[in-house]
């Protein structure tokens, strides 16, 4: 991201700004919806104050036991390929981030969202709502059981298909560790054609691809994918043990 200089304040940022270069720029013309929504003026750097360094706290009391099993939220079993998605949430220095909320949402196996405005002519599944929540354990790990989402077309664009993906939302320890991203599945041929995946710099894109994880598959039950999530981390707080 381009930033204004000079700035009259002496800027002190607890979380390095450099690591945010892994994010897509605001304007990526090939993803057409950025054209009228990306600001023209560069983002302004400001110091990190308590406002930015604190953030909302949603711990274990904010989720219920079945919130992380999207196959158990309806009356019966949803249709599709049952999968287990797991991983670890950590900061940019590799330190585990415990007790942080993860929210996910996704299409069903047919590529259809429950959302009222999804007009893709694919069936809804009465037993699948496509949303879940969990809070990371002490070692930063998390698990979801769900149905592998189907690819879906962006309606109104000519033969444009999104790769299968799961949307994720995380808080982390402060308001500036907030992250909304998408998880893609290793081996999906649509990934290389996706304008949204490709908004991210080449050097960081692969961090959004979940890896098939044979060792975590559940016999006679579910396949598994591993997806680690890396949030921004604070400078100078890490001492090598």
């Amino acid at each position, binding site marked *: 991201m381009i930033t204004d200089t000079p700035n009259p304040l002496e800027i002190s940022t607890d979380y390095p*700004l450099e690591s945010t270069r892994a994010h897509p720029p605001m304007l990526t013309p090939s993803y057409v919806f950025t054209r009228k929504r990306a600001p023209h003026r560069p983002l302004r750097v400001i110091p990190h104050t308590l406002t930015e360094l604190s953030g909302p706290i949603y711990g274990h009391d904010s989720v219920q036991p079945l919130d992380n099993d999207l196959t158990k939220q309806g009356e019966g079993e949803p249709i599709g390929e049952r999968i287990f998605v797991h991983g670890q949430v950590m900061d940019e220095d590799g330190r585990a981030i415990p007790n942080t909320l993860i929210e996910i949402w996704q299409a069903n196996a047919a590529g259809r969202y429950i959302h009222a405005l999804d007009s893709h002519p694919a069936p809804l599944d009465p037993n699948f709502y496509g949303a879940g929540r969990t809070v990371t354990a002490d070692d930063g790990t998390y698990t979801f059981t769900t149905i592998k989402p189907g690819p879906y077309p962006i309606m109104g664009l000519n033969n444009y298909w999104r790769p299968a993906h799961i949307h994720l939302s995380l808080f982390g320890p402060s308001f500036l560790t907030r992250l909304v991203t*998408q998880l893609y599945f290793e081996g999906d041929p649509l990934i290389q054609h996706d304008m949204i995946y490709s908004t991210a710099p080449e050097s960081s894109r692969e961090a*959004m691809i979940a890896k098939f994880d044979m060792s975590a598959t559940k016999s006679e039950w579910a396949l598994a994918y591993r997806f680690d999530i890396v949030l921004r981390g604070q400078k100078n707080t890490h001492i090598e043990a």
Partner: protein
Amino acid sequence: MVTNKPKTITPSQTVGPFYAYCLSPVNYKFRMLASNSLVTKDVEGKHITLRGTVLDGDGLPVPDALIEIWQPDGLGRFSGHHPLLKTAEFKGFGRAMCDALGLFSFETVKPGGAPMRDGVIQAPHVAVSIFGKGLNRHLYTRVYFDDEEANKSDPVLNSIPEDLRSKLIAKEIEPDCYEISIRLQGEGESVFFDV
């Protein structure tokens, strides 16, 4: 436990148009985690409405925008961080979806001033994140209030060219109701921060 240092942070992606069932299930049956009302029985502060619009580069509404706010209570204390608010019902966090006209509104309390790192008190403000289709990364801004003397000495406001400051300041349009216009691009573009 320290694992290997990762190569990169996980990049942001657009929230897309279909997040409502999970993030703001006002019209769905999923349990709400955060709504557009921050007011709780235990909260200290004056109740206010904070409302506004989100418009795109053509001045058209952004009906799919999701707004998140984060703020201290009326005494400038952040929930979960201030020793006296460790277990407060007041969360200081809200979420609101825009309607077809790009309008959003929050019921909250007027925040008190929160400190900078050097102990200087900032003018009362609310932190605002804007998510939407076509926003590869959420936008971050602040909303100040037009009836606060402290705006004149706020270090962040003062770091911004004078002609742009007003874009960060909500106007009290009727008693206890403040309004802000968020213009993503072009004429009247808001001020967004790189934090």
